[in-house]
């Protein structure tokens, strides 16, 4: 039976990438002096697993490349080598190199040879001139002598304690028999110490004289006994050759020992190592989880439909029915939370890559930075995690590049040399809030203002300082004096904001000149469900995301001054807001003539009053895709299915506010 080894590849890649993260975290700890005895062992084990797995699963280049890495780490954990800056640098380089190899293999791309040879060379240099021995050639057994069929005499007399090693002579014989034709005789115990009463059943007191006709060489024959050669008197001699005499049979060659220092006695497990409680977990494909979430979404809708169908029935007469349905609703909601929770992962999985990035960047920029992570256990939907990583990375780079001062600059203003950069996550009323806070120089308001006016983004000074700060979210905005290759030009805060908005979130910036800056990103907990306010427009029902709703009211005639054309304004307390009649905007017929309701929504710092016929209610809705069978519709973010089975469209508030702003500006 042959097993296709490729089915284990995915698991190997995942495991190896995780192992590399462990290694990197360990190296960072070593560098910052936070490492423990266990740290080195953990780093070694990770490298060891990668090397072993690579060999087993057919990735010989990876196995080969990680050999010296393992050797170096072994020396370090044995105390033969200390983790100085030079060694650490090479280790970081190697980790990056192995990661690149694994990623390439995963993507079925060719191995990045240049990078690999670079770190291999660096490792060899650190390890010293002594070339690592033939361990790299470990897999190469010595070339077998040319085979020819011969008869061999084998005498095997196991020591009494053989059985206690778990070895079984019968099985050894069977292994021999596989090599050719085996015959033999049993030698019964002889001698003084063989009185039956004194014999222990656990001892092996038998011996054998065997004859094996085989074309295998002596090494192969001896190999059968390799496990027991220290508790077995063994002689293997060739009797007759049926073909031209072979060269002198050499003593069995053990595969070349490594030149690396002999491994000292390993640290016993009793040495204080923080016990790692194994967390029982299983890996599940994302598609399975998504399918589950869809099904639960359907259940919620069906349950809502039941609720609606039954609502007209007399609650007294149908008391049982009502109460059971309430129970069903509770169960369904619980099920929904539990299933959505399956997709939630701790945000620490995103945070984990940042320490390394911050370290490298700070190094490059000549700044000393302490990165503090808080709230890594806070959970976030997996889909969102993947999409928030780049924006967060960009915000961090911005802080490092522009916000934080160099060592000299900080000394000059009397700040401690080490900058403080904090990345935190916490839950707050149905959302997750991610914050990046630094104690750097804050935003340069005058410069931003000047650039904004110069670029025509605004024509006069905005009302508040916060307004000036938020100007950096406008497209194409970069006040950097020089283009650094760190943050790049053009990939500005506007892209970050767009990404956050696409996730249904918000981003805000607070700056304290000279003291620091804080950026807060607020995200909904899940992408699949939305808290919505349902509104009626003509015969249709629309859903407005609650997160965007500021307030709603019934406008009085005095609040709506007539303006030429369709666009109107509505007065809300002291300001005028643009008014958009949804019926007109969407081209929907409505016979409604009443006063209607104005729903004030906000997105991207812009406010808009939406005019609808009536408010219908508030509910949690399952977001369905329009693009799956149709295409995207401007002004519509998605669709959902109401309790009565009808489809309701979800408004794209961001787009609507943008459109209304254009209309006013025009």
């Amino acid at each position: 039976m042959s097993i296709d080894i490729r089915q284990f590849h995915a698991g190997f890649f995942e495991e190896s990438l995780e192992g590399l993260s462990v290694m990197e975290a360990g190296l960072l700890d070593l560098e910052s002096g936070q490492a423990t005895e266990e740290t080195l062992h953990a780093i070694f084990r990770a490298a060891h697993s990668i090397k072993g797995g690579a060999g087993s699963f057919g990735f010989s280049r990876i196995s080969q490349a990680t050999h010296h890495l393992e050797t170096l780490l072994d020396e370090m954990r044995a105390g033969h080598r200390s983790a100085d800056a030079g060694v650490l640098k090479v280790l970081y380089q190697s980790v990056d190199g192995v990661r690149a190899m694994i990623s390439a293999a995963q993507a079925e791309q060719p191995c990045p040879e240049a990078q690999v040879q670079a770190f291999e060379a660096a490792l060899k240099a650190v390890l010293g001139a002594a070339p690592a021995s033939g361990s790299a050639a470990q897999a190469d057994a010595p070339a077998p002598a040319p085979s020819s069929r011969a008869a061999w005499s084998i005498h095997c007399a196991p020591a009494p304690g053989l059985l206690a090693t778990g070895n079984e002579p019968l099985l050894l014989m069977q292994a021999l028999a596989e090599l050719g034709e085996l015959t033999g005789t049993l030698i019964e115990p002889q001698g003084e110490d063989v009185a039956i009463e004194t014999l222990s059943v656990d001892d092996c007191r038998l011996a054998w004289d065997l004859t094996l006709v085989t074309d295998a060489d002596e090494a192969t024959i001896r190999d059968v006994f390799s496990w027991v050669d220290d508790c077995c008197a063994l002689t293997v001699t060739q009797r007759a050759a049926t073909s031209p005499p072979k060269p002198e049979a050499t003593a069995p060659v053990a595969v070349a020992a490594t030149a690396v220092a002999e491994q000292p006695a390993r640290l016993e497990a009793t040495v204080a190592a923080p016990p790692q409680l194994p967390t029982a977990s299983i890996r599940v494909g994302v598609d399975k989880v998504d399918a589950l979430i869809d099904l639960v979404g359907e259940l919620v809708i069906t349950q809502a439909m039941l609720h609606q169908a039954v609502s007209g029935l007399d609650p007294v007469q149908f008391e049982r029915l009502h109460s059971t349905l309430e129970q069903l609703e509770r169960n369904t909601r619980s099920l929904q939370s539990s299933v959505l929770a399956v997709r939630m992962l701790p945000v620490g999985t995103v945070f984990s890559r940042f320490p390394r990035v911050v370290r490298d960047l700070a190094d490059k920029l000549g700044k000393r930075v302490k990165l503090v992570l808080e709230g890594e256990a806070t959970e976030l939907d997996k889909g969102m995690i993947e999409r928030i990583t780049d924006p967060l990375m960009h915000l961090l780079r911005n802080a490092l590049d522009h916000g934080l001062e160099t060592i000299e600059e900080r000394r000059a203003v009397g700040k401690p040399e080490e900058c403080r950069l904090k990345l935190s996550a916490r839950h707050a009323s149905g959302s997750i809030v991610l914050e990046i806070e630094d104690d750097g120089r804050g935003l340069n308001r005058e410069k931003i203002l000047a650039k904004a006016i110069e670029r025509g983004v605004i024509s006069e000074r905005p009302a508040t300082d916060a307004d000036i700060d938020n100007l950096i979210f406008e497209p194409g905005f970069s006040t950097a004096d020089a283009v650094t290759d760190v943050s790049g030009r053009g990939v500005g805060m506007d892209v970050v904001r767009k990404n956050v908005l696409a996730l249904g979130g918000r981003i805000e910036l607070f700056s304290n000149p000279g003291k620091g800056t804080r950026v807060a990103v607020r995200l909904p907990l899940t992408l699949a469900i939305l808290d919505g306010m349902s509104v009626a427009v003509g015969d249709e029902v629309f859903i407005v995301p609650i997160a965007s709703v500021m307030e709603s009211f019934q406008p009085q005639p005095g609040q709506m001054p007539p303006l030429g054309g369709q666009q109107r304004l509505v007065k809300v307390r002291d300001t005028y807001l643009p008014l958009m009649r949804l019926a007109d905007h969407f081209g929907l017929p409505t016979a409604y003539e009443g006063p209607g309701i104005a729903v004030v929504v906000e997105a991207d710092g812009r406010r808009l009053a939406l005019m609808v016929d009536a408010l219908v209610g508030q509910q949690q809705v399952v977001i369905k895709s329009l693009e799956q069978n149709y295409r995207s519709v401007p002004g519509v973010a998605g669709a959902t299915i109401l309790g009565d089975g009808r489809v309701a469209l979800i408004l794209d508030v961001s787009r609507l506010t943008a459109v209304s702003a254009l209309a006013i500006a025009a």
Partner: protein
Amino acid sequence: MPHILAVDDSSSMRQMVSFTLASAGYAVTEAEDGAIALDKARGGQYDLVLADVNMPNMDGISLIRALRALPAYQYTPMLMLTTEAGDGKKQEGRAAGATGWLVKPFNPEQLLATLKRVLPQ
């Protein structure tokens, strides 16, 4: 049907070993370190133990030593999975009571071939 205890901290190795053994008709139980394996061994009766040498919490050789001390496992075959072909580790393992070893990296075929030397077919 022989019941095998496979101990390795690498999940992909455990996966490969389990799959290979199960395909060959063996029952397999996995453990990710020596301490967990020892617990499981005490609670059950295994016909063969495969133990990786490098593991956290309790390494393979310590595990084998601890198992040999249990009456139920005096004669049970136990194989070390080691990357070292040199004598050092093997001696250490034998001293602790290992039956033999399998050198990593190995493929499924090598694993099954080696099993023939410790489990009756």
